């Protein structure tokens, strides 16, 4: 009985909580692909998917079944274990980060003290899936894509780190729930607007989204690092990439848009429960991801590096100093 109470019941609860996060997340990923195709279609005066199911709503599942039914191809020159581990790693990393994201007050799987650092660590590991895939494929296109992506993701992580430090200075805690609670009076997107913009652009680069999608630049590298992947191994990369987009949007919502908090704490707004606000904010940021993709051409590689190291890094470093200075000068340090 004690064994049941001490080990089995808590494990079962944790597994149930994990499922409660992962299943909606995967549905969200499926419908993000649909959302993306519809939004970009609307921006380009097309109709987008409209054949499978009403309004094309079953299109993501049709795509999923198609990918499952295809043959998994292992290139003969590939390093088999690393080749198969890379998509798994990408997918796992995109899921485990959700453990610390707070959906409402107290509604979080692991409310750890170093939540922001955990998120930062997990997002900095995303590069391994890409670099391992590129190397193990034993193909020059995949390898070039992986090298580009390694340099790109490491560069933009630096400015993301400084942006996070600025937010932390205003909060005085590394716990994500504390960060959201600190935004009760004003969302950090308003006082830290430049940092918000830098974070969003760096998030685009970190998730390899257009206009920074050089690692998969189809016009010169075919499909970049996952050119040799097919069927489910490709689908795992795809799922991981879109789950990462949702994760970065979630991070933006937590750090700058007040997480689960309503925009105004008055009657019609605070009737809506916190998780719905959080989902709406994520959807809002995701719309920007798609909007950018439909609008901007791809960056050239040297311009990408220039933006990261010569523009964002000095600017975010300056803002860390300015924020710290203002906080100390007005005695606002939390």
């Amino acid at each position, binding site marked *: 009985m004690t064994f049941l109470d001490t080990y089995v019941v808590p494990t079962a609860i944790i597994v149930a909580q994990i499922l409660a996060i992962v299943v909606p997340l995967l549905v969200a990923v499926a419908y993000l692909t649909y959302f993306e195709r519809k939004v970009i279609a609307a921006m380009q005066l097309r109709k987008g998917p409209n054949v499978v199911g009403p309004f094309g709503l079953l299109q993501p599942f049709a795509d999923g079944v198609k990918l499952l039914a295809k043959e998994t191809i292992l290139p003969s020159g590939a*390093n088999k274990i*690393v080749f198969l581990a890379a998509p798994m790693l990408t997918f796992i990393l995109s899921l485990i980060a959700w453990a610390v994201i707070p959906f409402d007050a107290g509604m979080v799987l692991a409310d750890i*003290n*170093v939540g922001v650092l955990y998120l*930062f*660590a997990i997002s900095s590991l995303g*590069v391994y899936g890409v*670099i391992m895939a590129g190397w193990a494929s034993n193909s020059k296109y995949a390898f070039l894509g992986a090298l580009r992506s*390694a340099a790109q993701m490491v560069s933009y*992580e630096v400015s993301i780190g400084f942006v996070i430090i600025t937010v932390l200075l205003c909060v005085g805690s590394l716990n994500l729930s504390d960060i959201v609670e600190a935004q009760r009076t004003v969302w950090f997107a308003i006082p830290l607007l430049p940092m918000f913009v830098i974070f969003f652009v760096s998030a685009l680069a970190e998730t390899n989204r257009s206009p920074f999608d050089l690692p998969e630049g189809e016009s010169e590298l075919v499909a970049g690092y996952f050119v040799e992947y097919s069927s489910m191994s490709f689908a795992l990369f795809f799922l991981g990439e879109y789950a990462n987009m949702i994760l970065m949007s979630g991070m933006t919502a937590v750090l700058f848009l007040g997480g689960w908090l309503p925009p105004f704490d008055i009657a019609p707004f605070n009737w809506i429960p916190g998780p719905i606000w959080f989902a709406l904010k994520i959807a809002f940021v995701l719309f920007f991801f798609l909007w950018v993709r439909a609008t901007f051409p791809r960056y050239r590689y040297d311009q990408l590096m220039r933006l990261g190291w010569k523009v964002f890094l000095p600017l975010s470093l300056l803002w860390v100093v300015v924020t710290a200075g203002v906080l100390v000068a007005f005695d606002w340090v939390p």
Partner: protein
Amino acid sequence: MVVQALVFYLFAAVAVASGAMVITSRNPVHSVLFLILAFFNAAGLFVLMGAEFLAMILVVVYVGAVAVLFLFVVMMLDINFVELRQGFIRYLPVGAAIGLVLLAELVLVTGAWTVAPGVPDALTAPVPPVAETTNTHALGGLLYTRYVYLFQAAGLILLIAMIGAIVLTLRSREGVRRQSIEAQNARRPEEVVEVVKVTRGGGV
């Protein structure tokens, strides 16, 4: 406690095993990947000890940045594995000698290790008390007050290392056409675009 002990042995065993694989695997890329696994398990051990800040910093700095650059370099190397194995016997004595010297130094260091007099008291009653503070606050409080000069000195040393690396690798080459962003942004459409009325069949 049983679960904690089991997890400890899991992390420790995987860390030691992957450490051994780092030096025994034939492919250098596999070595780096095993090194990353070892870092991960070390981070897991830190978490078990309640040092969550150190664990996360280990992952961010070593796994997220240093090992990526390491992997980057190792992947770019053009290595002939047969050639790599050839000198093994010839260099074995030198390698063994260096290993022995390092081992002797380690033994000497740990043998002559003295614990500072205040440490036992600090361990029994830490200031601030463990229950009241997170270890991020505790580390920050110590690092920016008592050890602030050492901390700044460490930063300066890293800065010098960075400048050194840049000085060693920076070379200005002749005849490279660089993009001047300022000049490009200063261009106005009136100055560089000419609208021409093209007559049919006449060309420009």
